[in-house]
């Protein structure tokens, strides 16, 4: 009699390797097998022609629609208008200004997102306070020896970014004030904030934009008029600040009550308590929420085409109407969708990752 352990037998061949994986994940049981086959069939019969259309049969080089003769997607259309998609009607000689502003923006965001970079606080201040001023003068010009570039020449992806970035940056302070006001113990302050927030959250952005473009001029004394883009920005900022306030309120409520009480016990005043104790902790918790509102805003900026601004989607629409390129609207929609998707998806991934990271910090949300 042997009392040693026998070496473990290898698992049966149908439980490991490709077959095993297939059995475990695709064909475990009759229902799943049928589902796999049905979905798989559908996917293959749908995806193969799509991929063929997008990549294999498509045309990439050329300069007119004559180049598009292989029956697939006509990417020549997009490539020949790429500048317009990215920069709108911004004068060609001044494009470096747009590009510089874009590089600065991406550079600072990458700096903030990378885990190891130092001095994040300073960069954040630069991005939220100084950068918008710099970018404004870069884009608009009319000073520092730069030629003025009218806002109705702005367009494409750069306009989308301007709308989204300004919307989020300008709504942040307003949102903080509103969120603090909503939690205030003074009844009038509280109700004013609640009414403000609920009104803006209750109406569709499109009516806000209508209001900004049709009614806003009536609210100001005669002779005072606003640039169309500025009007849209005002509308977007007010709208966005209500959503921002709710995100910030969520962050404030996630801070344990003990923190508030401890600050009170130390004899700190309201603003000291908020600025030194609560906000630094809450802000960290709010970042995923802020990124999520940013994603929503980024997608919503496409609505400005209804009031006649040429954002990325509007440029795509305009390109579709070019008589030289009629019939390629699918290509332009796909391209615009891809641009939006890349931005939104990467931001949502970042916010999910951050959420997971933050989850360990504060366990006691209840």
């Amino acid at each position: 009699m042997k009392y040693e352990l026998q070496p473990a037998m290898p698992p049966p061949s149908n439980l490991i390797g490709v077959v095993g994986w297939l059995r475990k994940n695709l064909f475990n049981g009759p229902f799943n097998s049928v589902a796999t086959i049905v979905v798989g069939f559908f996917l293959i019969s749908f995806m193969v022609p799509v991929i063929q259309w997008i990549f294999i049969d498509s045309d990439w080089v050329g300069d007119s629609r004559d180049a598009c003769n292989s029956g697939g997607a006509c990417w020549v259309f997009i490539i020949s208008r790429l500048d317009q998609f990215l920069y709108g009607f911004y004068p060609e000689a001044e494009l470096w200004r747009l590009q510089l502003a874009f590089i600065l923006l991406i550079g600072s965001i990458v700096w903030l997102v990378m885990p190891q970079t130092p001095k994040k606080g300073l960069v954040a201040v630069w991005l939220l306070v100084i950068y918008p001023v710099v970018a404004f003068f870069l884009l608009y010009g009319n000073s520092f020896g730069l030629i003025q570039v009218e806002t109705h020449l702005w367009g494409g992806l750069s306009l989308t970014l301007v709308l989204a970035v300004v919307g989020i940056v300008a709504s942040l302070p307003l949102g903080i004030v509103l969120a603090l006001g909503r939690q205030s113990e003074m009844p009038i302050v509280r109700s004013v904030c609640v009414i403000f927030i609920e009104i803006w959250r209750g109406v569709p952005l499109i009516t806000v934009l209508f209001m900004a473009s049709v009614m806003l001029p009536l609210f100001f004394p005669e002779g005072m008029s606003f640039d169309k883009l500025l009007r849209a920005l005002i509308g977007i900022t007010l709208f966005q600040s209500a959503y921002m306030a709710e995100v910030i309120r969520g962050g404030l409520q996630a801070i344990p009550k003990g923190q508030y009480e401890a600050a009170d016990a130390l004899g700190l005043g309201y603003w000291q308590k908020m600025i030194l104790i609560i906000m630094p902790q809450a802000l960290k918790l709010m970042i995923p929420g802020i990124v999520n509102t940013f994603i929503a805003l980024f997608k919503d900026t496409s609505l400005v085409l209804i009031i006649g601004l040429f954002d990325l989607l509007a440029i795509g629409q305009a390109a579709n109407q070019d008589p030289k390129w009629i019939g390629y609207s699918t290509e332009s929609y796909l391209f615009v969708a891809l641009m939006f998707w890349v931005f939104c998806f990467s931001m949502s991934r970042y916010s999910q990752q951050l959420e997971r990271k933050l989850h360990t910090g504060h366990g006691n949300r209840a």
Partner: protein
Amino acid sequence: MKKTLISAATLMVAMTGTAMAGTLETVKERGAVQCGVTSGVPGFSVPDDKGNWKGLDVDLCRAVAAAVLGDASKVKFVPLNAKERFTALVSGEVDVLSRVTTWTQTRDTQLGINFAGVNYYDGQGFLVKNELGLKSVKELDGATVCVQSGTTTELNMADYFRAEGISYTPVVFDTNDQAAQAFDSGRCDSFTTDLSQAAGLRTRMQDPSAVGALPEVISKEPLGPVVRQGDDTWFNIVKWSHNAMLNAEELGITSANVDKMKAESTNPNVKRLVGLDGPKGKGMDLADDWAYQIVKQVGNYGEAYERNVGKGSPLGLDRGLNALWNQGGLQYAPPMR
């Protein structure tokens, strides 16, 4: 961050100018006329590949700039859709609205605006595909019709069909471009708009030769430049810029021969127009040679017509109602004296 907004606000607000009291002063101070145009109607106002605006309405704005600033290129064009055009004008975002706008009583009297003339006499018509073999609008019973929203066109069509007892389904779009495109792709059986615009939009369709207009013209559409109510000097300037172009055509003065005429002509009418005699720019606070500048830099009405919508353009429209009064048309300018 708030600072940014404020600084941006000040700059942008300042840019569009203040002081409604005197549009002329504002324009001179700014050094440019702000002109509201369409976002793209071929022949009337449309930007070319390089973003230069072209068209009959555009030329009117250039004429105003030439008269006021002596330089026809000093115009800032602001593309507006039908919905926002009047608000943009009354709020001062633009100084003159030259945007295929129909002169109606309601608009003239209730919106705080004034029509400064008619630079194109138009009428509403219907485009259909030739393959349908239609002869008259009356055969459109049961048809789906594409139309731009918020225009007189939409109302005229409703009135006309109601009077004729014809049933129809309107499909309404925000811009004429969209409506034309929808018609082109087969969403509608017919597309209705002012005939001049129809001619322009037709050139953008997949096969322009497969599309034709039905004979009926169902409305009067006098299109013209619009200014804010309550600034008579500016109203006069726009009105007379248009009149100067008409008078120049009547007198046979063109951008090519204006210098020669100025130097040689003994015709008192010509001398008054080029600013050697007569009322000159007095009463409008303009330079003496304001009309000369218009003709020199922009041309007379006939020139503008031919290169933008007439035989010299893809639209190829006849002068028709827009011929001068002494050639069987309606364009009639009061004398400059």
